[in-house]
């Protein structure tokens, strides 16, 4: 799995490429921790190249929900494949996280 972070027009974009599983989820956690530490207010998670996510990856997103709320940080995921999105749906996380189809929609949502 590869993770890249870039600041783009006021949005901090974390792009995930590959599989987030028990062996790699720590790196997603580190990327999110860094964004929060830097005081980023608008975080977009680019999942276009996210091939797979297991509970380890979902757990990372879940563990930030409260902190993001407390710090008024917006996080929006976008570009999930049907297969990956289904995993969020099975757990009901599609109701607890902001998930959008496209980057444009995600950008809008993060500044609403």
């Amino acid at each position, binding site marked *: 799995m590869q993770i890249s972070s870039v600041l783009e027009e006021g949005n901090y974009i974390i792009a995930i490429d590959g*599989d987030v*599983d*028990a*062996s790699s*989820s720590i790196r997603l*956690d580190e990327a999110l921790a860094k964004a929060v530490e830097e005081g980023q207010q608008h975080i977009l998670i680019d999942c276009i190249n996210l091939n*797979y996510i*297991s*509970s*380890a990856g*979902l*757990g*990372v997103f*879940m*563990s*930030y*929900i*409260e*902190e993001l709320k407390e710090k008024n940080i917006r996080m929006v995921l976008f570009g999930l494949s*049907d*297969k*990956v999105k*289904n*995993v969020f749906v*099975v*757990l*009901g*996380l599609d109701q*607890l996280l902001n998930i959008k189809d496209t980057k444009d929609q995600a950008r809008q949502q993060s500044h609403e």
Partner: protein
Amino acid sequence: MSNRLKVPCRKEKLKEVRVFVGNLLQKHGIPEIEVGEMVLAVDEICANLMIHSHNCNPNKSIGIKINILKGQEVVFEITDYGVGFNFCRYKEPSIDDIIKEKKKGGVGLILVKRIMDNMEFIQKANRNVYRMVKKMKIV
């Protein structure tokens, strides 16, 4: 194509497990979403065993066997040796509690329970079998 795989208890081997399960199920014409769900369930059980039962000790291994009864069901049997974990007796934490407590784990078995139709823990001498059945709607 073999329906069995044996892997050492290393988290880096989970990808190999997923490729094995995914390829086998795809060959039998099972739809992508369902293949994805079953791959996830097997990955979750293997990750749990590797991390919690075997402390990621690469000298220990896990066996995976898949039997497909066409049009009826897929049976997964994951085997390890040592102290077993009765995953059927696992009490599901609530998603709300996990979020409130900012925990990073605990949802793996919830996913498995929601995906699989049947789960059975079988202990034979020092061998543990984690058996899961997924009923097929299509084919």
